[in-house]
C-alpha cells in the first residue's frame, strides 16, 4: 500500500477573521483539518497605553486606562483609582464604595452577556448573539443614565466616583436585573442541553489545573479548571467582604464548564447588586482630593477581579503629578499565551470554540 505523501500547510487566522475577536492572529499549521502547531501573533492593537499614561497627570490617565479594556471599562478605571488611593492613602466615602461595587457588578454582567453572545455565534448559533446583546442594552442604558457613555465610562475618580446616580436609577436597575435573571433560563434552554452544543464544547480544550496556575491564567477560566480562587474573596478589596455571594467553581476545565461558569457568575453578580442597592448609604460621593494631586513616592500593584480574570495596575510614583510608570496587566495576555498548551489533536472548529470560551479580547493583550 503506497503511502501518499501529504504535507502540512500553514493557514493564517489573520488579523481580520470572524472568530478572532478584534485583531488577534493565529498562525495554524494544518495537516488536513488537524492542527499541528499554533503560533499566536499579537501587536496589531498595541497603542502604547503605558507610554501615553507616563505623560499624563493622574486625573488624565483615567480615560486612557479606560481604553485598555473597553468591554469592562468600569473595572479598568476602578483598578487605577484604587492604586492611586493606596499610594496616597486616601479614605473613600461609604456611598462611593457602594456605587463602585454596583457599577463593577453591572459591568461584569454586561461583559458575560457579550461573552455568551459571541461564543454562541462562533460555534454557529447566530441568534443567541442577538439575544445576549439585547439584554446588554438594558445595562448600557443604566450606565448611560449615570455617566453618559455607552462603552468607555471614565466613571471613577481618584477618591470616589464622578457623578451621583439619578433617582430613577435604582428602580430601573431592579427592573433590569429581574429581566436578566428571567432571561437566563431562556439562554440555558436554548443551548445547555442542545446535543450539537454539547458535542462541540464538552471535553474540548481541557485545561488542567497545574497548567492553568503555571501560566498565570485567572478568573472564570481558572475557576472552570477546579481552582476556587477569586480576588474578591482571596485578596479582598473595597467592601466585597460585606456581601454574601459564593464563588462558582467547576472541575472539568473544558469549554462547556467555562461557558456554564459564566452563566453562574451572572447570578452571583445579581445577588451582589441587590444587596448593594438595598444597603446604599447617603453621604457625599468623593473624598477631598486637590486638583494637582501629587501622591508621595512609592509603588503599588493593585489588582481586582474583572469579568475576564485578574486585572492589575502596577503604579510607580516619584512625587510629581505624573506617574513614573503605569503597567496594566490584563488576563487575556496569559489566556492567549496558554493557547498552544491545549494539545495538538484539535480541529480548526475546536480552536475557534476554545478561543471563544477563553473570552480573549485583544486590547488586554496588546495594550
Amino acid at each position: 500500500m503506497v503511502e501518499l505523501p501529504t504535507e502540512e500547510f500553514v493557514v493564517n487566522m489573520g488579523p481580520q477573521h470572524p472568530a478572532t475577536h478584534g485583531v488577534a492572529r493565529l498562525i495554524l499549521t494544518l495537516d488536513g483539518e488537524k492542527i499541528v502547531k499554533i503560533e499566536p501573533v499579537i501587536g496589531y492593537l498595541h497603542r502604547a497605553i503605558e507610554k501615553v499614561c507616563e505623560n499624563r497627570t493622574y486625573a488624565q490617565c483615567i480615560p486612557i486606562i479606560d481604553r485598555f479594556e473597553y468591554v469592562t471599562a468600569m473595572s479598568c478605571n476602578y483598578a487605577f483609582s484604587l492604586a492611586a488611593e493606596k499610594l496616597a492613602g486616601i479614605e473613600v466615602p461609604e456611598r462611593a464604595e457602594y456605587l463602585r461595587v454596583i457599577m463593577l457588578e453591572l459591568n461584569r454582567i454586561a461583559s458575560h452577556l457579550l461573552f455568551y453572545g459571541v461564543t454562541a455565534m462562533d460555534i454557529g448559533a447566530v441568534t443567541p448573539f442577538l439575544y445576549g446583546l439585547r439584554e446588554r442594552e438594558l445595562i448600557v442604558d443604566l450606565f448611560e443614565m449615570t455617566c453618559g457613555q455607552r462603552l468607555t465610562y471614565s466613571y471613577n475618580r481618584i477618591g470616589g466616583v464622578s457623578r451621583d446616580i439619578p433617582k430613577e436609577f435604582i428602580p430601573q436597575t431592579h427592573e433590569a436585573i429581574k429581566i436578566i435573571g428571567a432571561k437566563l433560563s431562556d439562554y440555558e434552554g436554548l443551548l445547555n442541553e442542545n446535543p450539537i452544543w454539547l458535542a462541540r464544547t464538552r471535553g474540548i480544550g481541557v485545561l488542567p489545573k497545574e497548567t492553568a496556575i503555571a501560566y498565570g491564567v485567572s478568573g472564570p477560566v481558572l475557576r472552570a479548571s477546579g481552582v476556587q480562587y477569586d480576588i474578591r474573596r482571596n485578596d479582598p478589596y473595597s467592601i466585597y467582604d460585606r456581601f454574601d455571594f459564593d464563588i462558582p467553581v467547576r472541575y472539568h476545565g473544558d469549554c462547556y464548564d467555562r461557558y456554564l461558569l459564566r452563566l453562574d457568575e451572572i447570578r452571583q453578580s445579581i445577588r451582589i447588586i441587590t444587596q448593594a442597592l438595598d444597603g446604599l448609604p447617603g453621604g457625599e460621593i468623593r473624598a477631598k482630593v486637590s486638583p494637582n494631586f501629587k501622591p508621595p513616592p512609592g509603588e503599588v500593584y493593585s489588582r481586582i477581579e474583572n469579568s475576564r480574570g485578574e486585572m492589575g495596575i502596577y503604579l510607580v510614583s516619584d512625587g510629581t503629578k505624573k506617574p513614573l510608570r503605569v503597567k496594566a496587566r490584563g488576563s487575556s495576555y496569559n489566556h492567549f499565551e496558554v493557547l498552544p498548551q491545549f494539545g495538538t489533536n484539535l480541529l480548526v472548529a475546536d480552536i475557534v470554540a476554545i478561543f471563544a470560551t477563553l473570552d480573549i479580547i485583544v486590547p488586554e493583550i496588546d495594550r
Partner: protein
Amino acid sequence: MTGKPVLFIELYGLFHWLYEKLQATGLSQAWVNIITYTALGLAIFTLLALVALFLVWWERKISAHVQQRFGPMRHGWHGWYQTVMDAIKLLQKEDILVDTRDRLVFFWAPVICFVAAFSAYVVMPWGKGLIVADLNIGILYIMAITTFTVISLLMAGWGSNNKYALLGGMRSAAQMVSYEVPLVASVLVVVIFVGSLSMVDIVKAQSGLVFNWYIFRIPFGPIAFLTYVTAATAEANRTPFDIPEAEQELVAGYNIEYSGMKFAMFFLAEFINLFTVSAIAATLFLGGWNGWAFIPSWLWFLVKTLGMVLLLMLFRWTYPRLRVDQLMEFAWKFLVPVTFANLIVAGVFRYLGWYW
C-alpha cells in the same frame, strides 16, 4: 410525422396555444419544437429567479424576526425590493480574477452550480398538468442532477487557490457525498410504495384523503420524512450542517474569492437548492398538489414547499454548527443504518401487503 409533437408537452393549457400558432405558420417541425421549448425554459427560468429573490428576502425577514429585529424595512413596504437591489448591485460589481487562480475551473464552477440548481426543475410537478416533461425516471433524474453541485463546490474550492476555499471545498465534498446515501434511501421508501419513479405518479398515488400522504404511512413514512429532512439540510448546506461556508471558521468557505456576478450565481443557486429540496419533500411526503379543490393545485404545491422552506430556515437560526468529524459520524453511524432498516422493513411490508 404525426400531429403530436415528438415529446409529450404536459403544460397543455399554456403552450398548446403557442404550439398551434407556430404550426399554422408552417415552420418545420424541428423549429417549432425549438421555439416552444426555449419559451418554456425562459418561463421556468424567470419563475425560479423570482422565487429565489423572494426566498433571499424571506430568509432575511425571518432571521430578523427570530432575532427580534426588523430586517430590511427602508426599501419598499417591509423592504420587498431589497433583494432586487442586491441583485442589481452584484451586477455592477467588479469581477475580481485572482491571477493565481486555475482559470477554467474558477470560471466554470458557478456556471455548473447554477445549471445544476435550475435543471432539477424539468421534472418538478408545479401543479395538475403543470410539469415541463414527465420523465418516467423523475426522482432519479433529480437525485443525479443535484449531485452536480458537489462538483461545482469542489471546483470553486480548488480553483480559487485559497487555503480557506480549499478546506471549504473538501468539506463540502465529504459532506454532500456522505449525505447523498441516506437521502436516496429515504426517497426509495416512497418509491417502493408508489411503484414508479415518475413524479406525477408519486403525486397521483397520494391523491384522495389526507391520510394517503406518505408522511402518514406509519411507521416508515414519518421516519423516512425525518431522515429525508435531515439529509436535505445537509444537501442544501444549511446549519447545522453548513460547514462548507462556515462563517466563523473558514471566513466564507468555497465562495471566498468570488465577487460580483459569480458570487450572485452561487448565492442564488444555494437558495434554489433550498427550494428544490423542499419541493421534493412536499411532492414525496406531503402529496404534491393534492388538496381541496377550491384552491388551485399549483397554490397547494407552493404552500407546502414554502412550509418546508420555513422549517429549514428555522433550523438555521436556532442550531449551532456541527464539527466535520461529528457530521460524518452522524451520517454514517446513525442516519445510514436507520434509513436502510426503514427501507428493508418498508420493502417487507410492501411485499406482504400489510399496509392500508
